[in-house]
């Protein structure tokens, strides 16, 4: 048999073999019959609508820290003190519930030598006509209706202190109505000393919330 005929025979046999082999690659594959298997889910948002109030630039020195004294005492330049701000917050029904809502005071710098700087927080309006807190030996005692009060330690910088944590209001599913927290700041007259004159406090109010279960 000559070369061409031999080559033709070999090619023919190979192609036939390939045809046979190829014809065996037909495997059954079936799709499942599925019921109750559609899952539509949505990532919830977590938005606290927040307003931090107007900056505090001056405050009163007093031993009778009523709301009126703190917010309306006259200063030497004819202005009135403004040692008060209102923090408001709410969340939508679509937002996940929070386990807490915390108001903090960040201290940039506090060069006061005493714990004269004092704060009080009320959820809603503060009581009027009474001292929001009384201070003795650097310890503040809150009046009825004041949810948090304390003195601020001297000589601190770059530190956060928690003014108040609300563990109830935002710990619900659904919408939370706008809630106002009133923060008052003053210098306790019974604590301040001459060495505090010229000293300054610098910081800011901020808030945070943690998603709850």
């Amino acid at each position, binding site marked *: 048999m000559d070369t061409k005929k031999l080559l033709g025979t070999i090619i023919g046999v190979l192609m036939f073999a390939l045809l046979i082999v190829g014809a065996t*690659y037909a*495997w*059954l*594959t*079936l*799709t*499942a*019959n*599925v*019921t*109750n*298997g*559609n*899952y*539509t*889910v*949505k*990532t*919830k*948002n*977590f*938005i*606290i*609508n*927040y*307003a931090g109030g107007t900056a505090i630039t001056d405050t009163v020195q007093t031993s009778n820290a009523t709301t009126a004294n703190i917010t309306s005492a006259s200063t030497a330049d004819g202005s009135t003190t403004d040692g008060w701000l209102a923090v408001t917050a709410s969340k939508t029904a*679509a937002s*996940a519930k929070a386990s807490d809502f915390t108001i903090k005071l960040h201290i940039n710098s506090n060069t006061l030598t005493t714990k004269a700087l004092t704060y009080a927080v009320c959820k809603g309006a503060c009581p009027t006509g009474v001292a929001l807190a009384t201070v003795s030996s650097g310890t503040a005692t809150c009046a009825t209706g004041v949810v948090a009060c304390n003195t601020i330690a001297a000589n601190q910088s770059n530190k956060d202190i928690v003014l108040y944590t609300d563990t109830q209001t935002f710990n619900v599913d659904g919408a939370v109505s706008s809630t106002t927290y009133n923060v008052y700041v003053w210098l306790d007259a019974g604590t301040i000393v001459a060495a505090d004159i010229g000293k300054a406090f610098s910081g800011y109010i901020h808030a945070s919330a943690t*998603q709850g*279960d």
Partner: protein
Amino acid sequence: MKNNKKKDENRNKVIISITIVALIVALVAGGTYAWWTWVSANNTAVNITVKGMTMTLDGGGNITAQNLVPTSCTSTTYAVQRQISYSLTNPTTIASTATIQLNPSTFPTQLKNSKLMWKLTTAANCGGTQVATGTFGSTTQGRVMDLTTIAVPAGTTTPITGTYYLSIWLDSSYTGTTNVGGEVKDTIQDKSMTLQLTGTIAQNQS
């Protein structure tokens, strides 16, 4: 003598050729020739039904609205918890493999995150033994995800049945917030996805 032999050979070749041509013509012409025929009196039945495998899945109930927030696998509030039941047969003569899958028919790219996770276990709410786990970090809308496989031997006429528990959750280790104006809002929030339970059963190629 040599010439006579050659003449005989040539004559034989011609006779063979003529015969072959005549047969071909007869074959092509077919019905124009009347031949004796015979048919058998008894017919032997040949009835074939192509056997196939079956796979049924019950996904434990459709979900139309479920919220995901960062949580743990065991959460019954903010994680998807579903019982998946399967039933498999393979009456064919070739072993097969069933694959349980999820089809992300709606899947925003913002949800493509490795902290969005899934797990198959042997007990409810991420309990028991882990069968398989994975994330949605490489998920693309419409691209089917394999969860796990089950071997179905040849000749399985009595269904193989079983139950797995599927958990899908946004893990509490997720971090990432984006400030948008006065709000703290993450791009992963407020996004919907639809996952369709599906599956295939295929003969093993040998």
